[in-house]
């Protein structure tokens, strides 16, 4: 039995994720034990005594995981869970409910409300390690997925920006820095977009130069139209005649 636990410990330690964990429990003994075990596993731990304190803290600080007691004064675990899951900014923070084994009805209710898992009291350090590790790993994967989707959205926004002429290549720097296939797509897209922009700028300059030439030719044509008209010729002849008369008179 001991050998199995040692091997399990080694297996879990090999894949352990660490994070910032919020422990919400009104009983000092539970807080002390959880803090001790979690810190020994390498996590950063913050302790609060009830649901209200937890929500106030969550307004100011981000956590990777919440260990939540169910029966608490001020605000119980059910209400904390309901509020967390109703808040789009905090609904993805995983919650493990802390419960006695004779509270399975409450545990089931919490899991139905969105809790990730439960941890029975008294705490088994190995089970605590396994469940926190699994939750943190899932959260990390979820965070990566969200970041991936955000960067795909940047690429599609860039494609739309090219069509409307509002694309700024630097907006793809973060995508292009990725080491994976999306990063390669970002780099290729960024390079091609820069080439398209450079070509557009060169074409714009050529069009501008052509416009100037066209404008000058147009002006020359307009001048010619005036100077070559019969009316202009008559005016010119009258002017010459007037100049001649003026000279004869003097």
């Amino acid at each position, binding site marked *: 039995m001991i050998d199995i636990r040692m091997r399990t410990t080694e297996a879990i330690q090999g894949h352990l994720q660490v994070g910032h964990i919020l422990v919400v429990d*009104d*009983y*000092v*003994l*539970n807080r*002390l*034990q959880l803090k*001790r*075990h979690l810190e*020994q596993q390498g996590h950063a731990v913050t302790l609060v005594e009830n649901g209200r304190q937890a929500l106030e803290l969550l307004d100011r600080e981000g956590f990777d995981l919440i260990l939540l007691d169910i*029966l*608490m*004064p001020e605000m119980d675990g059910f209400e904390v869970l309901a509020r967390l899951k109703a808040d789009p900014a905090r609904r993805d923070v995983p919650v493990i409910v802390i419960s*006695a084994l*004779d509270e399975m009805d409450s545990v089931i209710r919490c899991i139905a409300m969105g809790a990730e898992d439960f941890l029975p*009291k*008294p*705490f*088994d*350090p190995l089970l605590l390690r396994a469940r926190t590790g699994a939750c943190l790993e899932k959260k990390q994967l979820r965070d990566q997925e969200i970041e991936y989707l955000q960067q795909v959205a940047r690429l599609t926004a860039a494609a739309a920006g090219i069509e409307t002429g509002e694309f700024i290549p630097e907006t793809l720097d973060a995508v292009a820095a990725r080491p994976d296939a999306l990063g390669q797509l970002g780099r290729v897209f960024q390079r091609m977009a820069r080439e398209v922009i450079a070509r557009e700028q060169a074409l714009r300059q050529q069009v501008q130069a052509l416009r100037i030439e066209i404008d000058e030719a147009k002006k020359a044509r307009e001048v010619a139209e005036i100077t070559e008209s019969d009316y202009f010729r008559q005016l010119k002849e009258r002017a010459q005649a007037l100049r001649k008369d003026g000279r004869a008179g003097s």
Partner: protein
Amino acid sequence: MAEVLDQPSFAALLESVGGDAEFVKELVDAYLQSTPDLFAGMRKAAAGGDAPALQRAAHSLKTGSANMGALAFAAQCKELEYLGRSGELAGVEARIDAAAAAYEDVSAALKACVA
């Protein structure tokens, strides 16, 4: 009659913290310091007819006592917790008195363990 402290449970507590006797002493001290407040909370809840408050205090004392290996006392706390959950508070003061008397033995046994 069941022993006041279940030695295998107390040994499991020590094992769970890697044999750190100092930390176990810290836990025992925290348990002994917090228990009078929990009893006060139960008495106040019983006097005021506040069943949820009785349930919460008895629940904490139940889990803490089971953690310390005081299994028989934890069972008494569990009964108080159930009374709180059911809202049936008739005669609960006498049960709290009985639990308080049992706690005296638990307290003495724990102090002896960490002395």
